């Protein structure tokens, strides 16, 4: 059975110049055909003070544009200060804003009221999904490594709306160590915010020059951008009702949203969508291996 499809702009995962960050969200508010927009720092708490002065304006602009606003929490919480920031978010009482838990601590704090589960909480099976739904989760963005069979099994009689990342670099790992800092012979404590040099992540190549991964501070992402455009009709038929796009600075995200909207409405063919996506970022490689139960890096379907 098909459900109305919600398009979700995921949080900016990178350390963008604060004005670029603000302008990106303003443009999403004004121009992008998405239903919901995630705002907030997911990767490194040290970045929050930079965009904090603009977050109020961004939320206001998104709400004024009739976008649902979701505040995403940190994925890996280690310090008291980080824990407090999640407590503050969870304590927010605003019907217009949903909080997305990216760590089990946030799911615990949000229990008993409607909330979202982000892709950094491990929901691999029906048991976990049912448990979280019973505590108030209304939507769950699934871990990126789940394939077709697992998604279909979860979508069958799912007690929450299910969301799948369909565009953008795959978040693969998070650490206490900052690899951006390490690559620049620095430590995390004195990182000089070098991750800001790479607004879409620092490219990591193998020793024989093959593009491989991308480092974003304490996070490691895929080099290739996931593109599940060819599988959107199948995802919809399984019952997946939410499609997530992960923002990149060098890719025109309103145009990506338009392509995915067309795909979800069935008004363009996957082949055309693929060509249009490739044109938006000619330097990017694309992958869809995970969906096909293959290594995530592989590109299998057009």
């Amino acid at each position, binding site marked *: 059975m098909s459900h109305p499809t919600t398009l979700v702009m995921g949080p900016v995962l990178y350390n963008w110049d604060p004005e670029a960050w603000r302008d990106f969200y303003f443009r999403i508010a004004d121009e992008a055909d998405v239903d919901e927009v995630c705002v907030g720092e997911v990767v490194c708490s040290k970045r929050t003070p930079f965009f904090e002065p603009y977050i109020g304006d961004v939320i206001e602009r998104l709400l004024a544009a009739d976008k649902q606003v979701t505040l995403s929490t940190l994925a890996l919480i280690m310090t008291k200060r980080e824990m407090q920031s999640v407590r503050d978010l969870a304590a927010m009482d605003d019907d217009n804003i949903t909080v997305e838990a990216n760590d*089990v*601590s946030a799911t615990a704090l949000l229990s008993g009221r409607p909330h979202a589960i982000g892709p950094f909480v491990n929901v*691999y099976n029906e048991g*976990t999904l049912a448990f979280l739904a019973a505590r108030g989760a209304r939507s769950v963005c699934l871990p990126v490594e789940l394939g077709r069979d697992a998604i*279909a099994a979860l979508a069958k009689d799912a007690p929450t709306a299910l969301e799948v990342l369909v565009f953008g670099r795959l978040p693969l790992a998070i650490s206490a160590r900052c690899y951006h800092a390490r690559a620049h012979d620095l430590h995390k404590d004195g990182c000089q915010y070098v991750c800001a040099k790479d607004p879409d992540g620092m490219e990591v*190549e193998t020793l024989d020059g093959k593009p491989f991964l991308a480092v974003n501070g304490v996070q490691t992402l895929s080099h290739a951008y996931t593109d599940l455009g060819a599988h959107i009709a199948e995802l919809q038929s399984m019952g997946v009702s939410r499609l997530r796009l992960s923002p990149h600075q060098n890719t025109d995200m309103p145009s990506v949203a338009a392509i995915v909207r067309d795909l979800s409405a069935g008004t363009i063919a996957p082949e055309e969508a693929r060509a249009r996506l490739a044109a938006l970022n000619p330097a990017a490689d694309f992958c869809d291996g995970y969906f096909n139960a293959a*290594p995530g890096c592989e590109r299998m379907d057009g």
Partner: protein
Amino acid sequence: MSAMELVCPAGTPAALKAAVDNGADAVYMGFRDATNARNFPGLNFSRPELEQSLAYAHARNCKIFLAINTFPEAGNPDPWFQAVDDGAALGVDAVILADIGMLAYTTEKHPDLRRHLSVQASASNPESIRFYADTFDVKRVVLPRVLTLGEITALNKEISVETEVFVFGGLCVMAEGRCALSSYVTGQSPNVNGVCSPACAVRYEEDGDRMISRLGDFTINIFEQGEAAGYPTLCKGRFKAGGKISYLFEDPVSLNAASILPELAAAGVSALKIEGRQRGKAYIAQVAASFRSAVDAIAEGGGRGAPSDLTAITEGQQKTAGAYQKTWR
């Protein structure tokens, strides 16, 4: 100060005996399938092997913990449920779980079976730990290898359950249970299949004087003549980033926190975990005996009681105290 419990790994019944005989307070092991995070060929236990091992260990006052610490596959949870049911029936002293659904199942079906939270659950803060303790009556949490000594001390003051930390062996540099690097390259997932950088995806190729190690389609390292060619664990590989070639994520080192055991005791840690279920019985015996004497010395107030030098058996003959020191980050 009560003695910290020494928890040793066992991939085979012979390794388990070696751990018991050399002073382990507890041994952790898994069944021979995808229900545990060390699902490698030739490793782990059948049900009869666990039964015999339990008799051997319990007769010597040693506990056995059963690790069922992968995330059950959607549509196919039965092997995981069966593992818990069998562990309970055989009388393991605790199960080590990571998945919320599995914790819910175990709490309901086997309320008296002691539950530990696996490092794979990545519980790194008081709210997460309180959630698992309050909801599933988890008695002990294995802390992820991301916390500094200071953070562990602060955490222990805020929670009421026991904590267990890794002190020796392989060093995961990513938050455990939240790493898909291996599946991105090999299609096999630590979280689902219980394997990281599996041998079936490894290839070594000679290129003139050089040795190339690959995982899946990617070169993980290239060794010049005379350099020891290590196993291509993805996060211990050499890569190019920002125009520089380096061990970007981590050098090919092992964790060895032997020098800070008194500090871990002072931080309120209840148990020390040795990594290495894939290791042979001689290795297990040596590490267990070494840490046994160190833990005993601390408990008796004998100062540092540093274990005998274990450098020779660490990976790459190098060691690190990892995330326990702030500079690691």
